[in-house]
């Protein structure tokens, strides 16, 4: 196979490598994923001693990657002794995949570099608060973080954690841990079809008291005169 990194002139390199605080940032150019992947792995194989033990953040641009593809790449990189620390993408699906596999979607130090590398896309969404929507059950060990609101269609099991700048809305059972209003918004709420949480925090305030016996009814948690309380969801209450 041709080593595309050695090609110059008309043929652009398949990827660029940059040193960042925490390791290497590899930015892929646009193109067919399977081709890019093979060329990337081929290049790494040829320079395997350089990459051995490296911590790599990968900018895949607008590639839409499923868990099987991303997981396979992570395992392949692992074979070369490379730790995939982050996957940066403009595709929401790819970001979600990375989060599900426990791979970060941002790098602190190179954060400013990334938007410059690619023209910003025109906003097509209505103005309003950004929300993350997940149609799945959050199991123990999964952690969802978002600066905006988080909406879950499914259960939140004990040991799962949600950290939201805005509200946390669960169409299912809430048995895990949730932080709403993480930026200090005291008006944020957490609501669920059944509330038996391990813990709920709104802004700086935690739910106090013993683990509650939930009722099978929609309830919501909010700050009322300085404490987090849970009350049944009624039309008049909200």
């Amino acid at each position, binding site marked *: 196979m041709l080593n595309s990194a050695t090609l110059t002139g008309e043929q652009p390199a398949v990827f660029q490598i940059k040193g960042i605080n925490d390791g290497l940032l590899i930015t892929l150019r646009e193109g067919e994923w399977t081709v890019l992947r093979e060329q990337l792995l081929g290049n790494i194989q040829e320079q395997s001693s350089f990459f051995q033990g490296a911590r790599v953040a990968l900018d895949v641009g607008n590639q839409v990657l499923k868990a099987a593809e991303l997981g396979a790449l992570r395992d392949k990189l*692992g074979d070369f002794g490379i730790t995939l620390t982050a996957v940066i993408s403009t595709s929401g699906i790819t970001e979600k995949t990375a989060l599900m596999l*426990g791979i970060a979607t941002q790098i602190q130090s190179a954060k400013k570099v990334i938007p410059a590398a690619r023209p910003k896309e025109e906003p097509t969404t209505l103005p309003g608060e950004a929300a993350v929507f997940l149609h799945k059950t959050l*199991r123990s060990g999964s952690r969802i973080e978002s600066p905006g609101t988080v909406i879950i269609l499914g259960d939140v*099991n004990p*040991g799962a954690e949600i950290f939201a700048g805005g509200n946390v809305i669960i169409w299912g059972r809430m048995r895990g841990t949730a932080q709403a209003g993480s930026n200090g918004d005291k008006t944020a709420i957490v609501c669920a079809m059944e509330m*038996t949480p391990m813990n709920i925090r709104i802004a700086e305030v935690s739910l106090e008291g013993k683990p509650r016996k939930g009722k099978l009814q929609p309830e919501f948690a909010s700050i009322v005169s300085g404490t987090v309380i849970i009350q049944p969801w009624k039309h008049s209450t909200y």
Partner: protein
Amino acid sequence: MTAKVVTVTSGKGGVGKTTTTANLAVALSMDGAKVVCIDGDIGLRNLDVIMGLENRIVYDLVDVVEGRCRLRQAMIRDKQNPELYLIPAAQTRDKSAISPSDMVRLCDELRPDFDWILIDSPAGIERGFRNVLAPADIVIVVTNPEVSAVRDADRIIGLVEAEEKGPAQLVINRLNASMVKRGDMLSVEDVTELLAVKLIGIVPEDEMVISSANRGTPVANDAKSRAGQAFHDIARRLQGEEIVFPSLDVKEDFFKKLFRVN
């Protein structure tokens, strides 16, 4: 023949992964299938002990992967079931000695000659877990009816889903019906209601499991024992049969129990 690769895992240690792997292998092979077990717990092997084959080990999984022997040379035939083989783990190495792609290659090489490839997992969710998950077609999660084991099972089921190897299937091991009745143990419903995956087996607590494992003849060799029967049921469900779960004669208000547990 194209074997299905079944990975038996749990997250938490000591819930009965190895016991389940050995007994499922015996049960499948007694049903006439060609079965090979792979011990994926490199560094802490014990599938060979439970199957009573430890004194026959010459080569192991790492020897195969590193090319020191051919695959066939590392396969040990079971004492009682001629169509059952074991590929033991290395005792002197650790999980980093093999990679997920090694396991995929190994299983692909075995597939044409077998009906079932069963892989026993190490405890934990690190490298060793990735190794055994990579080749899996079916993932069986073993848990005990206790809160910590169920919590870990939930985590594992989530990881299996994230890797698109799911949905996992559930075996509840070591269920003690009288403890459930007294309210001292989670019931089957408590566990399945939380984990929300397909239940493929309930194995009652049975002293014969331990005594037979110590003898190196998995309890499934005696299809009349209670636990042995349960493992045969799991094997038949794996093969696509609909087998009703035997009654555990426990009746208690479901919601009352649920809230006591939480």
